[in-house]
């Protein structure tokens, strides 16, 4: 401790304190926002629609109704389909607890995939609806990314951004980033149109076209940025910020270096001043200035 105190006036002390503060804050933040992984699969034995119903009643019926008929807080799920359930739950949007009123944000997923399938089975049994696509249906082998580009740019990019980075909608809603979405989730989202997203049924965007879109999105996501850091892939706003803060900031510092007044080299200055005093008090004989309060005192220089 005294080691720290003895060095508290060093120039580096300030930086060290700042670094310590940052580390502490980062640690606190990380502890608060730990992402929980999926819990262990339920070991209650039965699976399928029956288990799904039990899970549904426990986790979903408070908003969606005991028979998924809906309520003032949540829509009916009859006819929503297994795909909708899988999408909403595997992305962590459901169960929706808190978050901004406009839209349920993605939470860490707390149900296992099997549990999600069970609930999906149950909902599918209630009223049909789109099924969860299998791996063949979302395979991007042989896909036409040029067509995927055309479809994505005309139907998706206006909300999700040209590179799937997301975008703002009205009244606090937003189109999320696609970076974390799996091909299955993208397929399901197109099929079921979650929340404000429109539905892109197989009649207008056939399954192959959906695969083309998914291939385009996946390739865009995984493609490296050959020009350097992507600056968020949101376009010119971040570029302009960097030009001002990074570019001009750096150059102004250089300009200050270029035009700084020359100083004597340290060795020469030290030798000349023979130990440049660090904290030199004026000589004791020099008395303070005269003020009305001190004018009458002896020894004050007038």
């Amino acid at each position, binding site marked *: 401790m005294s080691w720290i105190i003895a060095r508290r006036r060093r120039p580096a002390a300030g930086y060290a304190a700042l670094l310590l503060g940052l580390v502490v804050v980062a640690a606190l933040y990380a502890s608060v926002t730990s992402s929980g992984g999926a819990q262990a699969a339920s070991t209650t034995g039965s699976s399928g629609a029956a288990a799904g119903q039990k899970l549904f009643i426990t986790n979903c019926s408070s908003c969606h109704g005991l028979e998924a008929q809906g309520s003032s807080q949540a829509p009916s799920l009859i006819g929503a389909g297994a795909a909708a359930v899988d999408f909403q739950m595997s992305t962590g949007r459901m169960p929706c607890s808190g978050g901004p009123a406009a839209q349920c944000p993605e939470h860490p997923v707390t149900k296992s995939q099997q549990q999600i399938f069970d609930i999906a089975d149950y909902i599918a049994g209630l009223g049909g609806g789109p099924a969860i696509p299998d791996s063949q249906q979302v395979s991007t082998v042989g896909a036409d990314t040029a067509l995927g*580009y055309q479809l994505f740019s005309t139907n998706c990019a206006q909300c999700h951004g040209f590179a799937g980075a997301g975008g703002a909608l009205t009244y606090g809603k937003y189109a999320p980033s696609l970076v974390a979405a799996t091909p299955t989730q993208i397929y399901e989202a197109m099929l079921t149109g979650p929340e404000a997203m429109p539905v892109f049924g197989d009649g207008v965007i056939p399954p192959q076209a959906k695969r083309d879109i998914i291939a385009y999105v996946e390739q865009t996501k995984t493609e490296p940025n050959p020009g350097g850091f992507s600056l968020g892939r949101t376009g*010119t706003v971040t570029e302009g910020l960097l030009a001002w803060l990074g570019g001009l900031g750096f150059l102004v510092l250089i300009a200050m270096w270029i035009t700084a007044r020359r100083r004597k080299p340290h060795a020469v200055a030290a030798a000349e001043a023979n130990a440049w005093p660090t904290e030199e008090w004026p000589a004791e004989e020099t008395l303070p200035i005269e003020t009305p309060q001190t*004018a009458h005192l002896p020894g004050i220089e007038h």
Partner: protein
Amino acid sequence: MTSTVPKPVSGVGGFLDDRFHGARGMRVFMRKIFPDHWSFMLGEIALWSFVILLLTGTFLALFFVPSAAPVIYHGSYSKLDGAEMSQAYQSVLNISFDVRGGLLIRQIHHWAADMFMVAIIAHMLRVFFTGAYRKPREINWLIGVVIFTMGLLEGLFGYSLPDDQLSGAGLRITEGVIQGIPIIGTYGAYFLFGGPYPGTSIIPRMYILHVLVIPGLILGLITAHLFIMVHQKHTQMPGLGNTEKNVRGQPFFPYFIAKGQAWFFFIFGALVLLSTFAQINPIWLYGPYTPVAISSASQPDFYMGILEGSLRMMPAWETNFLGHTISWSVLIPALVPLGIIFTGMAMWPFFEQWATGDRSWHNINDRPRNAPIRTATGMAAVTFYGVLWAEGANDVLSNNLQIPLYTITWISRFLVFLGPAIAFMATRRICIALQRKDAQELAHGYESGIIRQLPTGEFIEVHQPVSEENAAVLAANKPLPALPPAGTEDENGVPAPLGTGVLGKARAYANRGFAESVPPETNGHDDHGSNGHGSNGHAAVTAGHSPEELEP
């Protein structure tokens, strides 16, 4: 002490001198003194960025195809294999992925374009806030305003040439704005685009404007700008020994040239650093342009941002009459904010001359605090510009800060008026307060951090006199006297310049504002009756001063 010039230099020098009579001129020029301050180097950022733009642009022009003719792509960027695109777009993909160094040069070009505009704005703000546009430099200021305008256009055409989805949306908006101009709009749009939008003429036309016409104009203007600056000599900051009649600094050769060369390499190096590690304008991600598609977060490059912001901010106002439509929600944003800023910029030196009645030469810069009205107006303009600029990014702000979209727009609708007003008032008061502080420091010395205890037990802080250098800077505050009131005559019978009409009253009002300044001689106390202080009924002169600062 004479030393001999090396033979090669004297040989060439002699050859030229025989033909051009250059010896004296060269000596004068080589010995020319350039004052030193970091803020004087901002304009050079723009200059060197322009040079870099010319160099990289020439390289790009060797590969770019300015044609909108459609082709099917089969190049190296496999994600778009089979996609239909214009030849222009294909050539830019080619430059990026099939020409070694192509992507680097492309990015340097674009970063340099952004830095060019950044530097112009920063330089312009420096010149404004230091009053360096005053006589005899008004023409140079106007040239700068024109260069700024040309730069805006040049950048707009430049980033629209690759014909990608993002810049195509900007072109669509440009066409819509032109189309909306009363009477001549539709003709203007059809003439510019060679027919209905988008047509195939716009790309080759923008190309020739971008590589020949506008750079030629800018180059000519920059040359004139520099020539005038060298002829009139640069201004200098207030300081010890700096007068209106001299320039102090270091000679052109070798000092200024060496520093200038270092600055060029620093700027170039910074741009290349940005181009290596910060991706800019990734047109392959945007995709080729179709008028059917668009992306969220579609913004132009930052220097067009205020146009974008003003368009987003407008309510829906349109009038129809007698078979004609005027769309105010297009016309007002397109013309008014930029009009205010550019006209204001161009008029300002002359407005300030009119308001202050000051027709003398000024070669010493003002410290911004010593010209409260000018600085406050500048900050109001900066706030105005900034609110519009921020509104232009409202969807990005909304998405990243989780503020609802319309809320941002509503806030900016009010802030665009309130912000400049508040900025003006706050800045003016801050300037006057800083002037008072300067006057106090000059009169009483600076606080040395040394605390002494008097025999009475009282603690005081010892003030040391400011150094000669600092005193010269602090004392360089010479507020302009107010113009004499209208209708009076001075001792020689010359009538006062203020008129009595409406314009005269306006001038008197402006003049009172400009003259309100705290000169150093008042020692930081408000002296009523000097320099038209104002009517705020300030209380007793000694109020608020601590004992040790009172006059003995």
